[in-house]
Every structure is written in structure tokens, then in C-alpha cells.
């Protein structure tokens, strides 16, 4: 037998082998098209439109409706700490009840957000809690993701139906207000670099901007805003890069549609839709808290013991500067109708200034370091206007704030004390106004908190009498 010929390779086997090799090489380059380039395959896998995060679960076909935004820090996006309710309070306010909030020893509370539905607390743990206005913990939510550098969960954001909680490592969860059940969860995996906020139908998350391909790694990246739909949790748009440092605070002027960012000693005004920088102003000292907006005027308190008024309509031109005795401990608070502002310094004292001229009008002694250094403005009943030599035109607007130990006080703009209200602890957050009572979230001890209800003494006695009568009636029926 000619086994030599049997060993000879037939041409068709070579053709088949060639086709097979071509197929293998083709599939190899199909699977890794970057083999001959400097680009790495792994890096290429991480980019692309289909890497955009989508919320968990998939949004329903009919998006749910979202309610109005509530629970603004300092009561409004102007950050002016003016009581939004028209209620006029009496001076005979007492603490009607105080109920401890059982958060647990390990709940390292950092911030409390509040609206009429209750308090929503976050801190330096992965827990978030929803607390009713009666002090009962309605629900808790635990993030699984670790926090880096001991960062806190950001203060909760609320609308009428939903609470939005943001993890600093880049995850946002929307929870049902009543039961804390998750509505949607969006893991963005991008570090959140400043406090998020609600704006129109979005939750806005400031994240570190990504460097462009032609930018040096040492360039300052800046910040981008991610607009997340409140209804569905989908990422709707990403802003262009904003050249601002991390940790900025934000205020908003609705009439002029401008944002004001404060960070270190800089204030930047942005057009609300395009985020184009309209103007910026650099002060000599770091700014305390967000800017306070009152119409076309902007008020800033600095750690250099100054109050500064900028004119928004004139590209941030300094109108006046005034001195405090000590560095500011909180942003300025507007006193409506009377064109005045109040601000507390680090010694605890409250100064009242003429908002137009910057002239110092009065100094209110309320010494001590307070858990809540902010002052706020609310009205008292007209019957007290004459008693305390106030102007009828100013409709009883007064300065409220912590004073002494475990107290809240009411002062006239001229510095007279209208009332002192004893509380179970130090207020942590501006109170929630209800029809006939103020609800405070207070700190009673290092790691202990309570919800305090303050109401008119007369109303309180009436309520007690009714409760006693009801209890007696129950006893009789039993």
C-alpha cells in the first residue's frame, strides 16, 4: 500500500484548515478590537452609552406622580429661615410633651430633615430613620454600601410622598414616606461631592466631573450635576462641568432663576437652566453656610466676623459690609417686611442689621454654644405688638432661636425678650409648625434625642382637661 500518499495532505483539508484559522482570528479581533491599539479592553468595557446606570427596579410604564417639594433646609430654597406658615404665636408657650426617640446608641446622628409628615434622620452610620411627629420611629432603612473616610449619609430630601436618601459613595434611594419601602434605587457609583437637592421634578446630585480625554490628570475636575427623575429614578441629564470646589452649599432665587453656590470664600451665581456662570465674588474670609436670598439681594456671613450684602442684579457688586463682634456661627436670617437681618455669632449673641444700609441695630444676648446656631423668623400675635413696642406695619415678625440651656427664645428686633420656652433638650433643627403647636427635634443627652411639642399654655391646659375627662369616662365605662 502507498502509505506515503495516505500521509500526504489533501488540498481540501488545507483549505478547510485555512477557513477555520481565519474564523478563529476573526472572532479574536471581534472579541478584542483593541488588541493592536494602546487602548485597554477592560477600560473600553466600562464606557459607552449602555453603561448608564438604570434604576432598580425598572420604572413602570406609567410613571407615578410626584408631589411638591417639602422640607427645605432653612425652610426655603432662598435659605432665609422665614416661617412659611402664616401662624402668629403667643408668648405663653410651654412644652406640652416630650417623647424620647429610640434611635439606639450607635446611631451617630448628624442631620435632621423635617416637614409636616415627620422627621427624617441620617448620620455617620448607614441607617436612615423616619420618625413621626409624635416621636415614634415609623421605619428604618439600612444601606449596604460602605462609607469611605467616615462620611455621613446626606440629609434626607422630601416631597409630599417620598423621601430621597443619598449615600456619599453614589447611591440614591427613594422611599415611601409612610412605611419606608423602597420605590426605586439608583446606584451611580460616583462620589457625591456636595449636598444634593430637589429642583423641579428632579433630584440633583453633584458629582465629581470626569476629565476629558485631552485633559491632564492633575487638572481640577470640577463638578457635574446629575438630574435624576423623582418619579422614575432615571438619570435624565448631566450638566456641563461647573468649576467649583467640593462641598459647596446652595441657595436659589426663583424670580431670577439663579443658583448661588458658596464654598470657602467664594460665591458663584449660575443661571438655573444652562448653569452658565453669571458672576462670582471672592471675599476675604470663608463664608458660613449657604447664601441668604431676599429678592435681588444676597446676604453672607463670614468666619472673619463680617456680614456682606451683594446685589444680584449688579453681578454681585458689594453693597455693604458690616462687622460682627465674633465670627458668624450661622447664615443670616431675613426679618420680612422690616428689611432687617439677624445673625448669630460664635459667642451665641444675635445681631440685627438694617438690610439696606448694613447698620447694626441691636445686639441680643443669648450666650453659649448652641446645637442649633441658626435663628429663624416667625410672627407673634398682634396683641403683643404694642406691649413690646413693635411697629404694626411689621406684623409681629420676631427673631427666634436657641438661648441658654435647653431653651428657645423669642426676641423683638430691638432686642427685647418676648418669651423663653423650656425644652427637654437642645433644638437640633428648625421646628415644624403645625396648627397650634411647634414640634422640635431636640438632643437631650450626648446620644439621646426626643421630640418636643410646644403649644400655648391655655391650649395645653384645655387639652389636659379634655384628656382627664376622657380618661374618667373610660374608667366609668370599664
Amino acid at each position, binding site marked *: *500500500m502507498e*502509505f506515503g500518499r*495516505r*500521509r*500526504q*495532505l489533501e488540498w481540501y*483539508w488545507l483549505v478547510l*484548515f485555512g477557513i*477555520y*484559522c481565519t474564523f*478563529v*482570528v476573526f*472572532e*479574536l479581533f471581534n*472579541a*478584542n478590537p*483593541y*488588541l493592536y491599539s*494602546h487602548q*485597554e*479592553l*477592560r477600560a473600553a*468595557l466600562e464606557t*459607552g452609552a*449602555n*453603561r448608564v446606570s*438604570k434604576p*432598580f*427596579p*425598572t420604572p*413602570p410604564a406609567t410613571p*407615578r406622580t410626584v408631589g411638591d417639594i417639602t422640607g427645605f433646609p432653612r425652610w426655603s430654597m432662598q435659605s432665609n429661615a422665614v416661617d412659611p406658615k402664616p401662624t402668629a404665636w403667643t408668648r405663653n408657650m410651654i412644652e406640652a410633651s416630650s417623647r424620647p426617640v429610640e434611635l439606639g446608641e450607635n446611631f451617630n446622628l448628624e442631620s435632621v430633615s423635617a416637614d409636616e409628615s415627620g422627621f427624617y434622620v441620617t448620620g455617620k452610620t448607614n441607617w436612615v430613620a423616619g420618625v413621626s411627629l409624635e416621636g415614634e*420611629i415609623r*421605619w*428604618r*432603612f*439600612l*444601606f*449596604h*454600601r460602605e462609607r469611605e473616610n467616615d462620611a455621613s449619609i446626606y440629609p434626607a430630601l422630601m416631597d409630599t410622598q417620598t423621601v430621597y436618601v443619598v449615600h456619599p459613595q453614589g447611591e440614591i434611594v427613594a*422611599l415611601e414616606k409612610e*412605611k*419606608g*419601602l*423602597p*420605590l426605586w*434605587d439608583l*446606584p451611580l457609583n460616583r462620589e457625591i461631592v456636595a449636598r444634593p437637592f430637589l429642583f423641579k421634578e428632579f433630584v440633583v446630585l453633584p458629582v465629581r466631573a470626569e476629565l476629558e480625554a485631552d485633559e491632564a490628570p492633575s487638572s481640577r475636575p470640577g463638578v457635574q450635576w446629575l438630574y435624576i427623575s423623582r418619579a422614575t429614578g432615571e438619570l435624565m441629564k448631566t450638566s456641563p462641568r461647573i468649576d467649583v470646589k467640593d462641598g459647596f452649599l446652595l441657595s436659589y432665587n426663583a424670580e431670577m432663576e439663579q443658583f448661588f453656590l458658596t464654598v470657602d470664600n467664594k460665591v458663584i451665581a449660575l443661571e438655573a437652566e444652562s448653569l452658565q456662570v453669571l458672576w462670582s465674588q471672592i471675599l476675604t474670609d470663608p463664608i458660613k453656610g449657604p447664601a441668604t436670598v431676599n429678592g435681588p439681594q444676597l446676604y453672607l456671613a463670614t468666619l472673619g466676623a463680617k456680614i456682606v450684602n451683594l446685589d444680584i442684579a449688579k453681578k454681585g457688586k458689594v453693597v455693604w459690609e458690616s462687622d460682627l463682634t465674633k465670627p458668624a456661627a450661622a447664615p443670616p436670617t431675613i426679618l420680612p417686611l422690616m428689611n432687617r437681618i439677624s445673625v448669630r455669632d460664635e459667642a451665641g449673641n444675635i445681631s440685627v442689621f438694617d438690610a439696606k444700609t448694613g447698620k447694626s441695630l441691636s445686639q441680643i444676648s443669648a450666650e453659649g454654644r448652641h446645637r442649633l446656631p441658626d435663628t429663624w423668623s416667625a410672627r407673634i400675635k398682634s396683641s403683643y405688638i404694642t406691649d413690646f413696642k413693635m411697629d404694626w406695619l411689621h406684623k409681629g415678625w420676631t427673631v427666634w432661636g436657641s438661648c441658654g440651656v435647653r431653651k428657645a427664645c423669642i426676641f423683638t428686633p430691638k432686642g427685647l425678650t418676648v418669651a423663653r420656652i423650656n425644652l427637654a433638650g437642645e433644638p437640633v433643627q428648625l421646628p415644624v409648625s403645625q396648627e397650634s403647636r411647634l414640634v422640635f427635634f431636640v438632643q437631650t443627652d450626648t446620644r439621646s434625642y426626643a421630640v418636643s411639642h410646644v403649644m400655648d399654655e391655655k391650649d395645653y391646659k384645655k387639652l389636659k382637661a379634655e384628656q382627664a375627662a376622657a380618661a374618667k369616662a373610660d374608667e366609668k365605662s370599664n
Partner: protein
Amino acid sequence: MEFIKSNIWEIKRSGSLKFLGGALALFHALQFYLWSRDNNLPLKYAAEAVPLCRSLFENCEWVRVLPLGAFEAIYYAYAAVAILAALVFLLSSFVTFGFWLLVICWWIGGLLYIQDLRISANETFMILFLTLSFLVIPSKSRYFRWIVVSFFAAAGFAKLSPDWLSGLWFVEHMSLPIKLGEWLGAVTLLVEMIASACLLFKDARFFLTGWISLLVLQAMMLYIGEVFLPVINIFLLVFLALQESERRKAEREYIYQSFIRPEPSFIMGGLFLIVFWIAQILPFFGVTTRTTVAGLFDLWALQPMASHEECTQMTFALYKNRVEQVSADLDSSRSPTLRCNLYLRFLDLKSMCRSLKERDSDFVTLSSILEVRSLRTRETRRAFEVKDFCQADLNFKKLSGVRWNLEEDVN
């Protein structure tokens, strides 16, 4: 019986097949050694209350028919039988005795392998598959050349994954630049797919080029630190070399063909090869193991060497007074290529339902969403989105039909 006799006859007349029988028995012994090093893995899983069933079986309690003591005895007997079979094949001419020892080996190994999904490994599958083929497939010499080439080619085919071709496996093992890792990934794929095909050629240049390339590749894998699979592959390459020299010798000496035992047919071997390749290719067509037929093929498929998918799972544990985000990640000792296995994720969640309920009476249910991203197409899909995972009537088959209903009150 005639069928078995003809198989034994084929082995008896070929030194390379006797060597292969001994090698397969040694592989079984090696498998036992590796299991015993992992805390006797099959016994560990057999002792657990609930087995992790393979996707083919709805319920696999039937594997627990034997008491644990009997299971242990069988497990240790497996090693003894394997070593004895190896000695018989390699050192004696009692081929029939060795054949039957190998049959016992296969049955015991198969029983240990099938009892729990967590024991799955490509090496174990290869050993059992090759042993079965050795025992029952006629025309062994021709068949084994094709099946060994198929294993190499299928392994290469499975490496056509961005996860492997990104070179990260080499970078992690050898601290190389990423681009060099990418190139090594590409080269291993080319060698496995093309060099293995060269083994089919009768031309010595092609055969030797393919053989040496594959040997060098296995040596490199051994050097990097992989042991089990390169050792198996080296033994198979040695077998192929012996078989090739036997074939050349036969062609030179015109071996007398027995008229009592005519040349064995390659039909059965061909069918085995077709089934093997269908099982390897099916996953690339997106066939998920939700039907019995797909589940049967899944038993024959090699597990991918590198992941073709990456996945993200979001799970909430709902209690009466709180909600916790929980991690539902698989056991870290499991193969990375099983991380996106839908069935394993389903089983793990069901197991978590039980354990959380035992730990806290306030526990209500789990809500979970699994998103899978194909590294090939870079497309994502939601594999499941279930609000009430712990409901009793939710099984794997119904998973895709369940939708997250936000209006339902879980409490």
C-alpha cells in the same frame, strides 16, 4: 456483553489505550486528592440539609437515598478503586479487571459529582466524560483524538470572552502590564483553537507543531500556578503522542485485521462529538436552562474559563419595622464564572429567605433585582425583578414571569 467485550478487545490491542486507561484512573485519584484537600467537599455538601440541585432536576432529594455513613464509605472506596485501576492498567496486563475497576470508579465519581451543583468543575466533568467515552465508545483511538482536540478547541472557544481577552487573569497572577496580559490572552486562545486542530493532521509537521505548542502552553499554565487542568492536558498530550507513534507503526507493519472483530464503527463516537459540541455552543445562542432538553445539554457543557457576563444584584430584606439593603453575593469560593448563574442566584435567595426568617421573626420577605450585562454585546438585561421572593409558590420556572408590583402592600 458483546459490546463490552469488543471495547475490552480494543483496549487490549493498543498500548496507548492501556496508558490512557491508567491515566484516567490516576485522574480520578487526583480528583479525590483535591476534594479531600477542600475538606472532603462531596461529604461536606452531602451532610447539609438541603442540596443545591442542578438545573435539570426540580428536586434532587433522591441523591440523599444513602445514609451519610454509607456515603462516606463509598467516598473513600473511590480513591482505593482508582489507585488500583491505575496500577492494573499501567503495570499489568489484566485489562478486563482494570476495565471493570474503572467502571466502578466512574459510577462512584458520577454519583459524588451529580449530588450537588456546587461540586461542578470543568476538570471533574472532563474526567467523567473521558472515562465514559473510554468505556463505551468504539473506535477509541480515532474518537479520542477528536475528543481531545474538541476539549482544547472548546476551551479556547470559551475564552472568546472580553473578560479573558482583557488579560486580567494574567495580570493578577504575574503582575504584567495590562496590554501584555491582553496579548497573552489572545495567544493562549489561538494556540488552543488552532494548534489543537493541527493534531488532526497526519502530516508530521502539523502534528508536531500543534503538539509542541500545546505542551508549551500547559507548561506555562503550570508555571503560573494552575495544576489540575494542565496535568490532565499533559497526560492527554502524551497519550496522543503514543497513539500517533502506534498509528505510524501500524501503517508500516500493515497490522492484520481480525475478521472476528472488524474495524469498529465511528458512528457512536461521531454522535458523542456532535452532542458535546452542541452543548458547548448553545450558551452562545442565549439558550437558558429553563427546559429539560437545555438542562440535559447543560450537564455536558464546559463551564466557561472566563466570565462572559457581569451582573449587579440589588436586594432588600423587608422586615415589619425596617428595610435593609443586603448583599446576595455568592460564596466567594465559587468559580467567578458562576457568579451570574441565574439558577444559583435563585437558590441563594431562597436559602436566604429561610435563614433570615430563622434569625428574626419580624422578617417578611426579600425583594430582589438582578441585572446581567453581556461582556460580548455590552447589552444589559434584567434577569429578574421580584418584590416578594420568599413566597412559597415562586419557583425557578416562574421567575421570569413575576414582575415588581409597587402598589402591593407587602405587609
